[in-house]
């Protein structure tokens, strides 16, 4: 096992980034793996950019992933994956949800004709590919298939669990999901999780 296994989890405030990292932390606690996370709360609810550093293993010492050392960037929004791309190690993997969320500031620039158009998905992923491998997940589509459009974040956790280097067994992550999400949403979350795994394996 790579020690420490370094992750950056990111997205836009309100997408459920903190819950994603809590599921992984819970799974580590259940497995007896050391885990260390660094996050910033406070402004995350206000459509701002959210990033959480998470490190698994005996040699996980400080809460922040140093620049260029993340094994994986897990992004609920592609622009956020690129925003934190400086954390990715050369040859690391970016798993991103394919749906862009344009910041209102960008819309405002467009309305004022200060820019010609929104940044495109293709531009964003092209730049991500310059730094590492890219796995694209249409998480909304899979979440709807799982029965709840709001389990997008669990679909993405599933996708990460499918990575060969990811140090936690899928079964342990499943158990962590069961105890971390509201009872009424367990089934949809577990289904979403499995669809996320399947999407990477296929």
């Amino acid at each position, binding site marked *: 096992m790579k020690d420490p296994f370094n992750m950056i989890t990111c997205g*836009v405030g309100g997408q459920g980034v903190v819950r994603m990292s809590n599921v992984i932390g*819970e799974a580590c606690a259940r497995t007896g793996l050391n885990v*260390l*996370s660094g996050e910033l709360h*406070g402004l995350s609810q206000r459509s701002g950019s959210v990033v959480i550093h998470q490190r698994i293993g005996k*040699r996980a*010492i400080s809460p922040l992933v140093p620049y260029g050392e993340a094994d994986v960037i897990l992004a609920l929004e592609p622009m956020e994956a690129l925003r934190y791309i400086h954390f990715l190690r050369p040859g690391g993997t970016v798993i991103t949800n394919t749906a862009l969320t344009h910041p*209102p500031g960008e819309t405002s620039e467009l309305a004022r004709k200060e820019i010609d158009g929104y*940044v495109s998905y293709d531009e964003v992923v092209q730049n991500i590919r310059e730094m590492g491998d890219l796995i694209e997940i249409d998480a909304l589509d899979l979440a709807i298939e799982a029965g*709840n459009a709001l389990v997008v974040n669990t679909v993405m956790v599933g996708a990460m669990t499918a990575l060969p280097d990811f140090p936690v067994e899928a079964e342990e992550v499943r158990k962590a999901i069961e105890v971390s999400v509201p009872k009424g949403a367990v089934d949809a979350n577990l289904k979403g999780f499995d669809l996320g795994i399947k999407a990477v394996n296929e």
Partner: protein
Amino acid sequence: MALKDVMDTEERDAYMLTNEAVVRAALEADVKVVSFYPGSPQTEILDTFEKVLPHMDDLRMEIATNEKVALETVAGASMVGMRSLTSMKSVGTNVASDALYSLAYTGVKGGCLCLIADDPHCHSSQSEQDGRWFGYTSYLPMLEPSTPQEMADMVRYAFDLSEEFGTIVLIRTTTRVNHQSSIVRLGPLNRTPFEEISWKENRRPYITVGEAARQAKAVLMDKIERMKRELEGSDLNRIVLFDGSELREIEGNEEGPSIGLISAGPCYLYSIESLMKLGTPMKVMKLGVINPIPERLVGEFIKDLDRVIIVEELFPYIEGFVKGIAKDVNPDIEIIGKGSGHFSEALEYNVPIVTRAIAGVTGLDLPFDHEAHLEKAGELASILPARLPLFCAGCPHRATLWSLQRAIRDKENLFLANDIGCYSMACLEPMSWSDSLICMGASMGIGAGAQYAAKEKVVALMGDSTLFHAGLPGIANAVHNNDDITLVILDNAVTAMTGQQSHPANPKGAGGFDARKIDIEGVLKGLGVEKIVNISSYDAIANIRKVKEAIDHDGPAVIISHQECALYHFRNYRHRGGKIVPFRVDKEKCEKAYNCIRDFMCPAISIDEVDGKAQIDPEICVGCGVCARLCGYKAIGSTAVDMGGEDRPYIEVDDYMELAKGGGSQTEKEEGVQKEVSE
């Protein structure tokens, strides 16, 4: 939040935020009275206690009006003999410090902890204040943890220390410790019943003035000396050896390298990780006690070293002590820190910063060229638009500020004194305007001075929570002196910025229990404000005239803009069975004037890339309908018409129930439940 972990009686490992570990450890230590004012990065301590409160009848909690009241509250409980705890953000300690210095003199009885959370990098604060000086200058013991587990251990220990010496114990953190999660070993949770203590059987004076103060000072100085001796031997301060591959104890007569490193808090973690990267052997001293500094221990550590590296954020606090101690024990030692130019006094550190500094000192090559990597990544990311925080969909502040801007027409004609809260974001787009933003409650004081000095009219902003925290003295001052200021009170019912905690103008108190709601208008009338204008925040157009009327008034005038925080309001709305009825753009009518975007910047509104017209994301829109009022082409309307309703906002539960009865479909209700469940 893992409530189950905080309250579990099983002794096991749990994944926890440091702020949650504080709560767990305090409960294990049988804390009885807690009080807080919210503020990042320590708010989750309050939030976690609030979640625990309904499950525990042996705990008393208040959300205080400010940090000073919170500290006084827990000190009062401690004087009688109960264990108590408060915590506050760095700048909150400034507010509490008046009480803090006196309480150091009087001492306390029941274990009493005060946590101070600094915020290097100003992630969510107005200054990079270094709270370590509070410990030193008040003669109070101060501990500093690096991890959630250390925090839990220190909290438990600090209660005992507090009672042993009859003193408040301070625990200092920084953002990276408060917001760090890791594995914490849960200890035994044995709560005792809450029983009032007889004061008459325990009476003793807690008085400090004149001769009493002079005597108390002597006692205090003796106390901190005794604590220094005791804490010198504490295992909170550790000396270890990094032998080039791992961290271990120094063996009996092992000499080890002639270079050492002293650190504390998160910087200790960055230092260890840096040493592991570089593989360079070094003696390491970790300080868990940062007041009183264990001078004998530090002296022994540095006396045989050629060089010592001090790694600490902000002030060269530890460095100053080391320099003083070195004069006596090892005057020739090279001290590497801020004074030597190796480290900055600004911003927070991380592993790359510390690695670079240590590599520079030891002459080692950097294991990874961060500069080139950052440059390439920065270039690739430069295509991205910024994603700054902004007012939420449905935020009443957006509407109030929109009306204010229209009322004054030209912001050149005004001095806008802003204050601390969500509305501080008036200084960001789309308003991009504030003339001052200083600290809690400062807008009225700054306004008082500005109205004398400036030719322009002064308008001050203040939230409802800030009003009770530190705003009332400024208002009384303005009324008494007839200062020409128009104050806009943004009454959204909660302390919104930190997560919608209650405050004195909310009918609920800590834990959601009933509390007395204080009427803001009544308070203002009582203070003698003669001109009070009430507005409903969402009535953006109608409010322009009313705001103007208040600004035109000579002398102190107050506009109270009423509308609950959108996050708070619509969460309750959904809990009570309401479903969001979003607005939408009629593409036929949209003329691409973009009034809804340029001046309003609601996160629900974007531009359709196909036809260039505005569009509203129904997942983000909460249906406040303000944008519809601003559209000159009447191109925005409510989806309520599809359910047989009217073209207007449906944002009250009773209102929505009427609409749902009139034709709201079952599937929509089910979606509402799902949305609830996934949050």
